[in-house]
């Protein structure tokens, strides 16, 4: 057995006698780098949201863990992701969000790519005014396409290209939430916020998928959502989280609620679910709104969270409805901000050298353990 497999063996135990991931998974640059390749590049990882490129031709550059990517909406409304690197001399193609009318023109020598990444023209490549050359074959020089999949408006990518299709990898979750496969509309500028947190990205996942902390960290939520009204959600190797049985819709000053998504079954009347889609996407579904969070790992102890809220109806200019959505976003922002001191505190706690990964509550911590088990299996994949 490899040293790492031996070291992570206790993580793979059943929750009753498992330990959490060792400190170095939170405090070491080397392990951050190892997880980058084996966990974040080798799976379906969230890099952003379709709402940031709403119109055909909209392009947004995203540097994810150092990799320059470009999200583009093509003329059929599909989202494509390319490596944001010119095939000529490796120049960054698009520096700022912009609308691309027709082609992506490299700012260096103006090689031009269409919205499908095909190399369209190579000015002066054969000398001044000669735009072809026998040795330059445009068919071979399209942009590198990164496999991508848009689900609940999250742009998922598989950077190393080794994963099975998203629809196969996430078959179970897609069918669990099939009822929410219907149009949902971003709530507008107030329904969008980001948080910068001094923690390892995994601690944000771990905190999100457990309900054990609710009474202590979210006392406001606890007044209507008690611990016993929650259940665990665990799917080996793909996701985990929690559900509630007592979701209460937010009312506005006239007692209006948000419109429901269409045709939901009765389980969603008071039910809501919060799931961490491994590795780094946190989703929440309710009868009247959804939210998505993409965790961007910046370094071993820094994470940026982008949070976006969606509704069943297209937002309009009605002031009251807008305030209602703002109120809802504020509510969630408060909840997520309440979590900051714990994810930052757990990060600092992991510099305590005696900490051994910690012991889980077999009754309360199994969604977290499920995640650790998965991470351990990913970093030791292929090792004896």
């Amino acid at each position: 057995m490899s040293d790492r497999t031996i070291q992570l063996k206790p993580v793979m135990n059943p929750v009753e006698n498992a330990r959490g991931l060792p400190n170095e998974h939170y405090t070491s640059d080397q392990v951050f780098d190892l997880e980058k390749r084996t966990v974040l590049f080798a799976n379906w990882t969230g890099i952003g949201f379709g709402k940031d490129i709403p119109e055909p031709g909209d392009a947004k550059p995203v540097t994810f863990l150092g990799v320059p990517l470009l999200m583009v909406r093509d003329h059929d409304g599909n989202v494509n992701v390319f490596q944001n690197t010119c095939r000529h001399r490796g120049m960054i193609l698009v520096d700022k969000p912009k609308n691309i009318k027709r082609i992506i023109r490299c700012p260096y020598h103006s090689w031009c790519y269409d919205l499908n990444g095909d190399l369209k023209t190579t000015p002066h490549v054969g000398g001044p005014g000669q735009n072809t050359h026998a040795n330059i074959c445009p068919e071979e020089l399209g942009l590198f396409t990164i496999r991508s999949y848009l689900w609940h408006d999250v742009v998922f990518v598989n950077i190393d290209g080794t994963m099975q299709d998203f629809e196969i990898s996430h078959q179970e979750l897609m069918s669990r939430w099939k009822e929410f496969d219907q149009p949902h509309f971003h709530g507008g500028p107030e329904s969008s916020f980001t948080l910068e947190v001094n923690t390892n990205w995994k601690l944000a996942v771990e905190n999100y998928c457990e309900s054990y902390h609710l009474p202590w960290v979210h006392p406001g939520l606890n007044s209507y959502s008690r611990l016993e009204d929650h259940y665990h959600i665990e799917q080996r190797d793909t996701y985990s989280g929690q559900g509630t049985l007592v979701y209460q819709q937010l009312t506005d000053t006239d007692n209006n609620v948000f419109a429901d998504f269409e045709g939901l079954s009765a389980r969603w009347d008071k039910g809501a679910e919060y799931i961490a889609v491994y590795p780094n996407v946190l989703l929440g579904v309710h009868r009247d709104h959804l939210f998505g969070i993409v965790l961007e790992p910046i370094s071993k102890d820094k994470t940026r969270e982008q949070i976006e809220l969606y509704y069943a109806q297209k937002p309009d200019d009605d002031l009251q409805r807008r305030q209602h959505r703002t109120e809802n976003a504020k509510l969630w922002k408060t909840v997520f901000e309440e979590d900051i001191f714990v994810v930052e505190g757990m990060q600092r706690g992991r510099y305590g050298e005696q900490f051994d990964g910690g012991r889980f509550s077999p009754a309360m911590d199994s969604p977290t353990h499920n995640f650790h088990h998965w991470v351990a299996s990913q970093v030791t994949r292929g090792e004896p």
Partner: protein
Amino acid sequence: MTPEELNDALVLAHQNADLNSDSLHPLVNLYHQAFTLNFPENPVAAYFYLTNAYVYALDSNHESTEQLESILRDAGRL
């Protein structure tokens, strides 16, 4: 426009070009003029300028894109 005036106008047009694709339209027109000024006496310079006009036309989806493309194609330059 004299070649010198055209050159100055091109420098200025490049300075004014930004992310807004309409800002590229003057470049399309000026390079097209530079083509006309040089063709047929100096085909190398002429097709050099026409190529530039075409690239900026593509980038900004200028109405002349197809026309420029077919001139270049007919001349065996694409």
